């Protein structure tokens, strides 16, 4: 079993799926070169028709993916930055989200829209956001956000085989992070969370980069005598409510951690759902650790202050325990 970077895991997933299903095509800006490396080299194996560089046209990339999907192909589209979901929002939220429904299921809508989310380069408000929260409300989408190379591989393969549009959120700080990816093929079903660490005092639900920070925070808290259960949501829609509720039933306390803004964030939906379904078990209000309600600030100093940190997660857990 090799340790390979997150991008290599994505690359392997795409290459395998393209090999075994010639309907799978990759498109996006500079996907041949591979801006963050995930698609690099695919063109050499599968040729320029199946690995298509597009003009700078985000709504087009999403809309073309939809057109490809409803005419027999299985596009994996790349939008270079998650911020650009808003440029393609009509295609994503109004069109692909509804297409299966309004056509009465005459066609599957097998689309993956991959993107790079989050901060890390300190380049501010249009290249650093986590935008998944705005896409919870549209129907018909699935949303996936892996935290490890292992999951990136297994989830991307499932996403490509899914007959529905999947927003696949990759964090740019994860791309270079290596992880163990078994040599044998495997799939990770969409909609299954992973308990990363068992604990009994409080549940922390996170995804993407925040899982790593939550684990660090829980080690710190362990030393302080607090036993934290860390769940990696992996898929945000559909959410693995069973795993989450089972954990909350045990701990009675929940902290959600997300890099995106708090107001209208993913944590709000999770908090409301857990309250609805497990009010009796909750010993304290669900705590949402998230970014403040501001544009992602420019510059390393401000960016670092803005993104949830290990101390802010510890603070959130402390609040939940208070």
């Amino acid at each position, binding site marked *: 079993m090799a340790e390979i970077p997150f991008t290599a895991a994505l690359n392997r997933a795409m290459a395998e799926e393209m090999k075994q299903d010639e309907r799978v*095509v990759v498109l996006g800006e500079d996907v041949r070169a591979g801006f963050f490396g995930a698609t690099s080299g695919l063109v050499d194996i599968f040729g320029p028709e199946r690995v298509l560089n*597009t003009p700078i046209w985000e*709504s*087009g990339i999403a809309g073309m993916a939809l057109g*490809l999907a409803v005419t027999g192909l299985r596009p994996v589209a790349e939008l270079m930055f998650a911020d650009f979901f808003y440029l393609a929002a009509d295609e994503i939220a*109004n069109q692909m989200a509804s297409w299966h*429904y309004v*056509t009465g299921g005459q066609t599957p809508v097998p689309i993956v829209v991959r993107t790079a989310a989050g901060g890390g380069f300190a380049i501010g408000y249009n290249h650093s956001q986590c935008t998944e929260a705005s896409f919870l409300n549209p129907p*018909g989408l699935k949303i996936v956000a892996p935290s490890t190379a292992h999951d990136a591989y297994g989830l991307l393969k499932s996403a490509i085989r899914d007959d529905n549009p999947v927003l696949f959120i990759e964090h740019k700080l994860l791309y270079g992070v290596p992880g163990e990816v078994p040599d044998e093929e495997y799939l990770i079903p969409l909609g299954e969370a992973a308990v990363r660490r068992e604990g009994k005092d409080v549940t922390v639900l996170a995804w993407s980069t925040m899982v790593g920070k939550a684990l660090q925070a829980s080690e710190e808290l362990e030393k302080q005598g607090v036993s934290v259960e860390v769940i990696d949501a992996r898929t945000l829609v559909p959410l693995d409510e069973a795993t989450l509720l089972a954990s909350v039933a045990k701990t009675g306390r929940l902290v959600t951690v997300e890099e995106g803004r708090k107001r209208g964030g993913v944590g709000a939906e999770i908090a409301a759902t857990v309250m609805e379904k497990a009010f009796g078990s909750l010993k304290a209000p669900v705590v949402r650790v998230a970014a403040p309600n501001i544009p992602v600030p420019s510059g390393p100093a401000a960016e670092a202050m803005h993104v949830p940190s290990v101390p802010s997660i510890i603070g959130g857990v402390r609040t939940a325990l208070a």
Partner: protein
Amino acid sequence: MEAGNVARDPVPIEPKMLLELYRRMVLVRMAETIHKEMLDRQEFYLMGHFGTGQEAVGIGMTAALLPTDYLFATHRGIAEFVGKGMSQEDIWAEYYCRSVGPAKGKGGLHLSDYKVGLVGLVGSLGADYSIAVGAALSSKIQKDGRVTLYSFGEGTSSQSDFGSTLNAAALWKLPLVFGMANNQWCEFAHYSDHVATGDVAPRAEGYGIPWSIADGQDVAAAYAATQEAVDRARRGEGPSFVEFKTYRAGPHFSGEPGAYMAEEDLCRWRERDPLLVAEQRLLAEGVATRDEMDKIAEAARAEVTSAVERARSLPDVTYEEMISGVYAGEVK
């Protein structure tokens, strides 16, 4: 292009084909007339964006397509749907949101019918520019020989993705035909309020796309201009752009009086009503008699009426039906 009795050389067309296209136009006109009557009697919920006076464009364009070709049609009338082969039964089943419709009644006005290449009618104008590019690209990748026809109004030429679409179509030499009905109205405003130039088609030039302007009142002309573009696409020579000069001979939608339209313009254009133009030619060339035409109209009325009656008599969708089908496959 002005309306009126301009002398033109008739565009060549097989007599049988002309008669068939005439029949389709009559069917469209009949369906929309019956639709309007139902609305006037407040018997139906669905507003109509009727295409009265523009039937030659939709019927002419679609006549150039094969059943397997893809069509992205517009909200303006049902000529394109009829021309592409969607049956009255299927249209009205969808309009009435009945589960027997091709889209299980989920489409409503957003008609789709995959068995005849109708991929779907979006509600946000221009959302389908890029979807059509995707469909044409799909055919190029799959080498399936299909052509995609993207139909739109001149008002929609101002929408965001227009330029990007022309660029992508030309860049990849896609089998994509742009068919633009310039009906001179964008809702309640004349198109000179929307579009900087009188003709839109010449824009294609700058993107490296061949273009033409066709008489949208003459179904033979509309058909011929589209056929040329479709043939070019089918030969792998890339996209073309055809602008059809026509006129929306009625209000934007059934719920408004269209008071902003000048009566004399309407009259002038009605002189070149596409059904009239075709009838005159059918008579002049001895292809059909008045009597035969009356029979065509009767048959159309029967076809529409029975489809409407059937749809009306079917039950509404259930809650179970309404709530299902968001995702393909099972999702908890």
